[in-house]
């Protein structure tokens, strides 16, 4: 009799366990149904996400780490005209990913973007600065010449005397020294790089970064030139040159394929003849 009571207890326990299992099963079904419904309602978001991922998978541009951080960004580089500014790129991303959450947009805006440096402006500015400087130098030289001329008057029809010749040589030496200084300004001397680096750390201007990139490139330090080109590009994405130096540095570092990829993707958007020319150069390895 006790056995039967015990058995009945066991049966109640068994039924309770069965009920719990059934409840769990029902709970799981409900959870999956809700999950399915949510996924269905959010289908567009998922689709967008999927498209972004697909694009990333297709491009696989081997950019430096800073750039590769954001796959969405890479997609953007491909799709959007690169001449756009950073802000424009962000807006485009935002409009493309309407369904994405704010958090994602925020993340995009935080990611490093490859901007384009307006190198033409920079060049024109630099050239005009150089011209002004040289003019100033020549003015001073001319002024010196004039003062010197006042002192020594060369006779056209006669040979110069030894003292006259020594005066002229001094002037030429002065001019040469001025010229050397000018070359150093555009070149890659340690002094120049140091000065520019300090200047950049203060101003954070893309111009300085680009000049540094060029200087390093000229010096043959392609890793640094790549780095500075990227920095310049981040700060101002409006011109070709940061892209070009970046790609050229890549090429010099033996990453021809990557360099071509970057330039090709940029050319698709910019249609810049300079970029095209550079692509041909790199293809033919005539850089």
């Amino acid at each position, binding site marked *: 009799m006790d056995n*039967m009571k015990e*058995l009945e207890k*066991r*049966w109640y*326990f*068994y*039924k309770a366990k069965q009920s719990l299992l059934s409840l769990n099963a029902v709970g799981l079904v409900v959870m999956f149904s809700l999950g399915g419904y949510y996924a269905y309602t959010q289908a567009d978001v998922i689709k967008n996400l999927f498209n972004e991922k697909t694009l990333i998978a297709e491009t696989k541009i081997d950019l430096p780490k800073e750039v590769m951080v954001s796959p969405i960004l890479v997609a953007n580089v491909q799709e959007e005209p690169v001449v756009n500014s950073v802000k424009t790129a962000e807006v485009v991303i935002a409009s493309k990913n309407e369904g994405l959450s704010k958090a994602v947009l925020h993340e995009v805006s935080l990611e490093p973007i490859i901007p384009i440096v307006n190198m033409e402006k920079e060049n024109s500015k630099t050239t005009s600065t150089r011209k002004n400087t040289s003019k100033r130098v020549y003015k001073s030289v001319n002024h010196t010449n004039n003062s010197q001329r006042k002192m020594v008057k060369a006779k056209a029809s006669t040979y110069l005397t030894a003292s006259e010749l020594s005066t002229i040589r001094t002037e030429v030496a002065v001019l040469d020294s001025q010229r050397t200084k000018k070359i150093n300004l555009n070149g890659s001397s340690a002094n120049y790089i140091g000065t520019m680096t300090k200047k950049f750390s203060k101003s954070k201007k893309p111009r300085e970064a680009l000049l540094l990139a060029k200087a390093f490139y000229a010096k043959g330090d392609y890793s640094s030139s790549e780095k500075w080109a990227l920095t310049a590009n981040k700060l101002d994405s409006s011109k070709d040159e940061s892209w070009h130096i970046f790609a050229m540095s890549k090429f010099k570092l033996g990453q021809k394929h990557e360099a071509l990829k970057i330039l090709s993707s940029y050319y698709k958007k910019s249609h810049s003849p300079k970029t095209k020319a550079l692509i041909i150069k790199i293809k033919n390895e005539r850089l």
Partner: protein
Amino acid sequence: MNNHFENVKDIFIDSVEKNNYVELKIAVYNYQLLKKSLDKPLKMILLFGKPGTGKSMLLNKLYHNLKESREIFYFDAPILSEKEFLRRVYESLTGKAVPKELRVNFDGLLRYCQKLKGEREIVFLLDECQLYSEALMEKIRLLSDTRTVKFIITLHKTDNEDIIAKQHFKTRIWEVIELSNASEDDLHLYIQKKLIQKGYVEISNMIKKKHIKFIYAYTHGNFRETNKFLYTLFDIYEYFYENKPHKVSIDKFSKKFLEMTALKLGYIDG
């Protein structure tokens, strides 16, 4: 309604009695097969199947049906001692008792059987032959070779060992009848027939297909397991009918009791 569940549960006590034999289609077929085999000039016939598939029942049925018409002897329990086995065979053949101090000489028994060839045909039904030693099985084979003695033996089919593959069975047995578990429909019929045979038609009608399905899920149509299940089930019925009659419905078979049975027999964990 009186508490006749006590009597109902007794129907399912596992016993090899001819009255308990339920004539299912498959059982009838096997019986006919066995009977026909006896008329053939075979020396040994093997009844083969898992425990609880009805081998002993079939042997028992055959014995009771034929004992009046043929010389047939049934050893329902295995005789493990060779001396005892030979003594029983001799006594069956001669009808004479062997004095306790004497033993049967096998060669003498063999010669005796050879002398009887053509005069008599004696059938021995041996149950649980998997327990016999190989030496004894060899002697059984030699006796059957005389064509005077015919053996019908039953063997358990085990998962680990295919006994049929054993050499002496492979070469000597001419007819093998394999018995298997009942199907779901056969099981339903088996339970119904058992109940109706004893006059419990009401209870038989209470058992529906879904209940059979439940029982079959655990017993797999094995007759011994089914008997055990139903015995336990009606034991539970008996208890509740006596102690908590409000919990017993006489119109509807209780799922609770079915589950309690499965719990008690360890088919499900509580």
